[in-house]
């Protein structure tokens, strides 16, 4: 691809080829991928390993490291995908994951992935890795987009100055991947000693500081023991200069001595300036721009980030997605319903044993089938949401709402967790790892269950379709907007009770607009939809059978009103009677704790819809106002088991999931009452 690079490679491999034969065999050579968020690390990881990790067009998706393997020629490599970071300090948990990994040096090579259109911001990481004496291959990715923008990357200045291999890649078009493999192969086989190491030339003042620091440190045995990882290649003094003593905790007496020798603040400023200059020199000498500053992306950005229009267009987009979901899915959903009803009718005729007949027809087909008819809605919604997300549009809301979010004590970043939460709360809660502010993080974790996850969708669709079919999309939009407001208000509320404050500024980077590939969209839709299908065959099926049994016994289906199921629901009747919810509604809600879809399947069973439609049965029981109250209750009440377990593991305490259990239910009950009251006035 470029002369400078090839030469340096040849040069290097010529004296290491001999080693090729006796090392590569049967060895697992560990390599890791690191880089800023959203530069294409996971995409490259997937290409190299053939894995299907979740790739999204926004920062903060990979928060834990992922491992895969691949073979090239005679060598086997173990590849680790790290979370996206800007620097390696310990300020947030994802950075810590990356830093701990890098510092422990159990790997051979680090592939630093940089974004061709934003080289500068990767350079900090690059220099830091060099300072840590890590073996680096620099992959400048998204080279297709750079070309499109009329930007040519010439890596030879970087190769010559820093003495590292550089490959230009595109995870989109596959360009440069073969070359990357070849470089990895050659580089991993050259023995560590024979690799030319880069020594960064610091300004004299900094050099002097590094020297004195190390001399001083040698008088402190505890430093030698506790910071052995940092001492190699004099990383400790540089790290200290860059990030201060916060997460280092060097001995006090040592710091005192150091302070008498140097003016640390001045030195820090000098170091920072040197770094910035060095980086801008490197970058400007590697980029050639042609063409004028204009692209369709900039045009879209200009309007879509407008502080009023941006939000309006955003709401419009969501509205369109919801309308499409209802309109497109309805005919398909009707067909499925027809299929289930005829299957039920047929089976009810051929199964002679009464209890088995009831179990299969009313329990399994009525219940699970009642949920499965929503497959079209769920897949279509995910498809369009996937499109918005992958194109980079959805995550932009984070930018638009940043100011609003700040007044709730959150940052725009947290909005991305809410969006993730629309799919499933579990990854949403895990994604809060990127939030450095502990107070903000805890408040968000405890409020994220209010993000309306996809499991609640069947309940909404059932009730909206039954009671509000003429304004279906609008009501759904209202629910999702309320869900966002609920998360925001709840975190503001909870933050009042969480003591501990530190304010860490948050920089949002806008993901670029990209046309999603159909393949990515298909993977996205399938991954999320698959989850729904698995649940239908698992927890939903089990719960439905249990509910059927509870409604069938003890009087063998003669009188459902005195069954066990009725007993459970009736306990709550005093609380829900004024809302117009009878015991069947309550029993469904109780079992919905297992999985929200179970609310729908249990209604199918409890309302005993063999032939007639569930909608019809519900219309006889609920008024529109009590249905709306029910919708909002389902939106807010107890998260599923998986979410509670995640809260436990992320907060390391049982206190918080138990708190969430009560907190969400109380709030849900309050909201249901308010909605019922207001709904009673308007509808």
């Amino acid at each position, binding site marked *: 691809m470029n002369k400078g690079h090839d030469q340096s490679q040849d040069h290097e491999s010529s004296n290491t080829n001999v080693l090729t034969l006796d090392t590569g065999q049967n060895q697992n050579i560990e390599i890791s991928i690191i880089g800023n968020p959203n530069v294409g690390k996971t995409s490259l990881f997937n290409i190299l390993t053939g894995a299907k990790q979740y790739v999204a067009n926004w920062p903060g998706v990979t928060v834990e490291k992922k491992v895969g393997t691949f073979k090239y020629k005679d060598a086997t490599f173990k590849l680790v995908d790290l979370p996206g970071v800007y620097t390696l300090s310990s300020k947030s948990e994802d950075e810590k994951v990356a830093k701990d990994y890098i510092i422990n040096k159990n790997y051979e090579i680090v592939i630093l992935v940089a974004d061709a259109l934003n080289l500068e911001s990767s350079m900090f990481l690059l220099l830091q890795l060099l300072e840590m004496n890590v073996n680096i291959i620099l992959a400048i990715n998204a080279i297709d987009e750079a070309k499109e923008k009329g930007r040519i990357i010439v890596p030879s200045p970087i190769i010559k100055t820093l003495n590292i291999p550089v490959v230009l890649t595109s995870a989109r078009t596959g360009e440069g991947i073969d070359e990357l493999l070849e470089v990895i192969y050659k580089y991993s086989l050259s023995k560590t000693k024979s690799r030319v190491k880069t020594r960064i030339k610091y300004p004299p003042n900094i050099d002097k500081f590094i020297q004195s620091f190390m001399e001083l440190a040698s008088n402190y045995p505890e430093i030698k023991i506790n910071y052995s990882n940092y001492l190699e290649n004099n990383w400790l003094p540089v790290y200290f200069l860059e990030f201060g003593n916060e997460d280092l905790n060097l001995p006090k007496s040592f710091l005192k001595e150091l302070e008498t020798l140097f003016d640390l603040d001045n030195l820090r400023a000098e170091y920072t300036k040197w770094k910035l200059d060095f980086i801008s020199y490197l970058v400007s000498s590697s980029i050639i721009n042609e063409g004028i500053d204009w692209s369709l992306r900039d045009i879209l950005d200009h309007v879509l980030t407008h502080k009023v229009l941006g939000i309006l*267009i955003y709401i419009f987009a969501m509205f369109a997605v919801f309308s499409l979901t209802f309109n497109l899915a309805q005919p398909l959903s009707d067909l499925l319903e027809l299929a289930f009803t005829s299957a039920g009718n047929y089976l009810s005729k051929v199964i002679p044993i009464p209890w088995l007949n009831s179990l299969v027809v009313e329990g399994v087909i009525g219940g699970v089938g009642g949920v499965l008819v929503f497959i079209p809605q769920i897949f279509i919604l995910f498809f369009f949401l996937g499109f918005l997300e992958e194109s980079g549009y959805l995550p932009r809301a984070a930018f638009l709402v940043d100011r609003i979010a700040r007044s709730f004590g959150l940052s725009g970043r947290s909005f991305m967790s809410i969006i993730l939460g629309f799919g499933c709360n579990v990854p949403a809660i895990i994604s809060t790892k990127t939030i450095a502010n502990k107070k903000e993080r805890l408040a968000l974790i405890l409020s994220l269950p209010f993000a309306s996850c996809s499991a609640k969708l069947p309940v909404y669709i059932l009730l909206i379709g039954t009671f509000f079919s003429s304004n279906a999309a609008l009501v759904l939009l209202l629910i999702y907007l309320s869900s966002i407001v609920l998360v925001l208000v709840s975190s503001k509320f909870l933050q009042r009770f969480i003591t501990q404050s530190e304010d860490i500024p948050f920089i949002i980077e806008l993901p670029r607009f990209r046309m999603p590939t159909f393949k990515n969209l298909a993977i996205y839709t399938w991954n999320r939809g698959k989850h729904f299908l698995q649940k239908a065959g698992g927890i939903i099926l089990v719960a439905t059978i249990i509910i059927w049994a509870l409604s069938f016994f003890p009087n063998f289906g003669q009188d459902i009103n005195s069954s066990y199921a009725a007993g459970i629901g009736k306990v709550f009747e005093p609380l829900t009677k004024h809302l117009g919810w009878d015991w069947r509604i309550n029993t469904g809600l109780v079992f919905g704790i297992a999985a929200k879809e179970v609310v729908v399947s249990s209604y199918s069973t409890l309302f005993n819809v063999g032939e007639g439609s569930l909608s019809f049965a519900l219309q006889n029981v609920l008024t529109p106002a009590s249905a709306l109250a029910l919708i909002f209750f389902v939106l807010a009440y107890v998260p599923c088991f998986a979410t509670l377990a995640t809260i436990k593991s992320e907060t390391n305490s049982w206190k918080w999931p138990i708190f969430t259990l009560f907190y969400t239910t109380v709030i849900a009950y309050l909201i249901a009452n308010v909605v019922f009251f207001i709904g009673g006035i308007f509808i």
Partner: protein
Amino acid sequence: MKNKNIILLIISILSLIFMILNISINFFYVFAFLLISITAFYGFSGENEVWYHKSAHIMVSSLLGIFTMAYELLGILFSLISSELSNIKPNIYVIIFGIISIVIFIEELNYLKKIEQEAKRKKSL
């Protein structure tokens, strides 16, 4: 296109008319046309931000018009599954506006490309 204010004016007025025509038909389209009108309207002022400010508002409002038409067409396509051809009534306003939007979008895109070419030529001289 040279006369950007006229284009912006046409878009914002036309979409307002179509919005009114849709009021008794479909709330979604009312929202869509209102949004298009506002987007075009914002194009009149704030020119000094970037040089392509007006073009951007023209292009985004026409894109919204195209998306709205795509929405209508998708709906028609899917309802073919369940109902007869004769029962389907397409919303002509949306389709007319969509076609106008396509023309405006392409014209504006070509105009911007032309500027780009000229700038390149000047640079290489």
